[in-house]
């Protein structure tokens, strides 16, 4: 029933290679546990703000999902023929269109606004980043039915609260922009050229911008946008730059949001980049990216997409936020000293030992190992906090064990104190 433990070194030599597709990976117990804790902490925080969890499916019909994706994002999806129906299906590259579909088609009888949260893994055919991860675990929210600054502000405050109180991240930056600025400046420009200009602008590539916008009335303004980044003053400069154009209104809207967010105490976390364009083409107004030290890429982002629900037949204003859990976990690791997580007990005894049930009833993981020496090795290998090895002379009470395990639940406290642990005597 039980395998003997493999001797160190032989495992690596005898294991066959079973490669994963590029960009896919496993989370082993330690990382899986800390990842689940992170997503749970964030989701619980979102729930406290009234955001209710929905779980969309892993793949959908291309004809339905791609209705909600921009042309650029459509290049990014993994498609396959769904054998049952023979129709083309796509693995979701983004959950926002799914939630939009749910709101538009399934929740029509509920009282607006719609405050929905989601958690899941999205899959992209290729990442635009150097990093080759194609499966991206996300947690996010969508707020549908609240237009304009009121909804935007709710989402920004929610993002900050989820990061601070949920993820425990004190230092982060919400970088604000408005998709309307570039959209208005490029109105009337042929789509392929507009796409090239957007790409150059997204890279703040001035020489290319000057070349690509040559002859456009708004060319010099578009090129100048590439230099505007900073705090409130960057938006004020943008408004001056865009005065008299149709892009002035979105720039002023951005300033109003920046000021409102500052008034709500977000000031230290804000920056502004009026020339920023985000990849997903469904954004219509405010857009934002969230940065924190560590991952070298955004830990999240979002924006307003007032046209998306109309594509599913129920026009409503909406704004959303998505957090990339891989990047967020990296940022959390970079900000707080990593702590060894140990939890639960290995009970030395048969698997009918009543102590197992007692611990489980108190909410602690418990596993039986008959042999005391193997119990220590097992506990060390799998991160159990305690080996409950009673002898005739020495008996530990359940209360004592629970006390040890409770303090082990707070990893930093357990690391520093000299409490008994699985390593004791091992």
């Amino acid at each position, binding site marked *: 029933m039980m395998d003997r433990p493999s001797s160190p070194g032989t495992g690596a030599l005898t294991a066959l290679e079973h490669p994963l597709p590029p960009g896919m990976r496993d989370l082993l117990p330690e990382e899986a546990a800390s990842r689940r804790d992170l997503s749970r902490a964030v989701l619980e925080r979102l729930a406290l703000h009234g955001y209710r969890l929905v779980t969309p499916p892993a793949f959908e019909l291309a004809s339905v999902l791609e209705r909600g994706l921009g042309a650029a994002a459509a290049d990014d999806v993994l498609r396959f023929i769904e054998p049952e129906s023979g129709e083309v299906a796509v693995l979701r590259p983004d959950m926002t269109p799914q939630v939009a579909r749910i709101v538009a088609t399934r929740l029509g009888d509920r009282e607006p606004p719609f405050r929905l949260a989601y958690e899941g893994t999205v899959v992209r055919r290729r990442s*635009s*980043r*150097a*990093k080759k991860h194609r499966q991206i675990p996300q947690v996010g929210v969508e707020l549908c039915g609240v237009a304009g600054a009121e909804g935007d502000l709710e989402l920004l405050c929610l993002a900050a609260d989820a990061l601070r109180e949920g993820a425990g991240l004190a*230092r982060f*930056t919400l*970088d604000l922009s408005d998709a309307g600025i570039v959209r208005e400046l490029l109105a009337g420009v042929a789509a392929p050229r507009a796409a090239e200009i957007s790409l150059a602008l997204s*890279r*703040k*590539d*001035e*020489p290319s911008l000057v070349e690509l916008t040559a002859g456009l009335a708004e060319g010099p303004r578009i090129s100048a946008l*590439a*230099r505007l*980044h*900073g705090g409130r003053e960057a938006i004020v400069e943008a408004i001056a730059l865009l005065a008299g154009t149709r892009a002035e209104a979105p720039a002023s809207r951005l300033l109003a949001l920046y000021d409102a967010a500052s008034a709500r105490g977000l000031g230290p976390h804000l*920056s502004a*980049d009026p020339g920023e364009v985000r990849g997903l083409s469904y954004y219509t107004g405010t857009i934002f*990216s969230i*940065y*924190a*030290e*560590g*991952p*070298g*890429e*955004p830990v999240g982002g979002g924006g307003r997409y007032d046209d998306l629900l109309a594509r599913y037949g129920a026009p409503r204003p909406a704004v959303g936020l998505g957090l990339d859990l891989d990047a967020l976990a990296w940022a959390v690791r*970079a*900000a707080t000293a990593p702590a060894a997580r140990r939890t639960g007990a290995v009970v030395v005894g048969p698997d009918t030992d009543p102590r197992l049930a007692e611990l489980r009833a108190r909410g602690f993981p418990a596993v039986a190992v008959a042999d005391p020496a193997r119990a220590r090795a097992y506990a060390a290998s799998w991160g159990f906090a305690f080996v409950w090895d009673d002898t005739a002379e020495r008996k530990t009470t359940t209360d004592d064990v629970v006390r040890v395990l409770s303090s082990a639940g707070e990893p930093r406290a357990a690391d520093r104190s000299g409490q008994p642990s699985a390593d004791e005597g091992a």
Partner: protein
Amino acid sequence: MSGAPPSGEAAASPGADARPAITIALPKGRTLGPVSKLFARAGMTGDAGVSLASALDEESRALVRRARLEGWLVHLLLLKPDDVPTYVAYGTADLGVCGRDVLVEHDVDAYHPVDLGIGRCRLVVAGRVGETLDTATRMPRIATKYPRAAARHFARRGVQVEIVNVQSSVELAPLTGLADLIVDLVETGSTLAQNGLEVKEDVLAVSTLLVANRASYKLRAEPVRALVRSLRAVLGA
């Protein structure tokens, strides 16, 4: 992770010395001299009173060099040119110096806020002097160190080609019959002329750019923008 970027505290206060305020990836080789001169004119010096040129001495084998910019500690990484965008894309280096040819070939997603005006040249399609290829009747073979940029260029023009990836002496390919055309960098065209080749089409104007990791550009805005500002001032851009 020892290569992880430093914390924001170091970036915020020029006095904090343990970690650099920013890390810059620089290409070893012939652009290093001009880049070093340009950065010196923009106010960067070596650490501890040393000149930037001696901090970047190529004879030294140190992989990380220390420099100062307006009181901030700067780490300079000397890398092979092709590795610069990798360090920047991952945020291990906040900034990098890199040719547009490399950025386009690797489709690097990073900001390119300043054209340093160094190493100006062109990526071109070249072939044997006087020869015109009928691409409608035969699929031409293209030898290049830039397979992706070349493939994109011909795809955009609706020409189907076979790309042959070569690493050195690209000019040799049309002479020996390995390929009909090459896609390569041309500065003056004299190497092409010596080998009986001529420019057929332009693909891309190339120069050396300052590239910035997106997150670093937002999170370490102070030192990053200080360098960007003074480089622009020196370059009159």
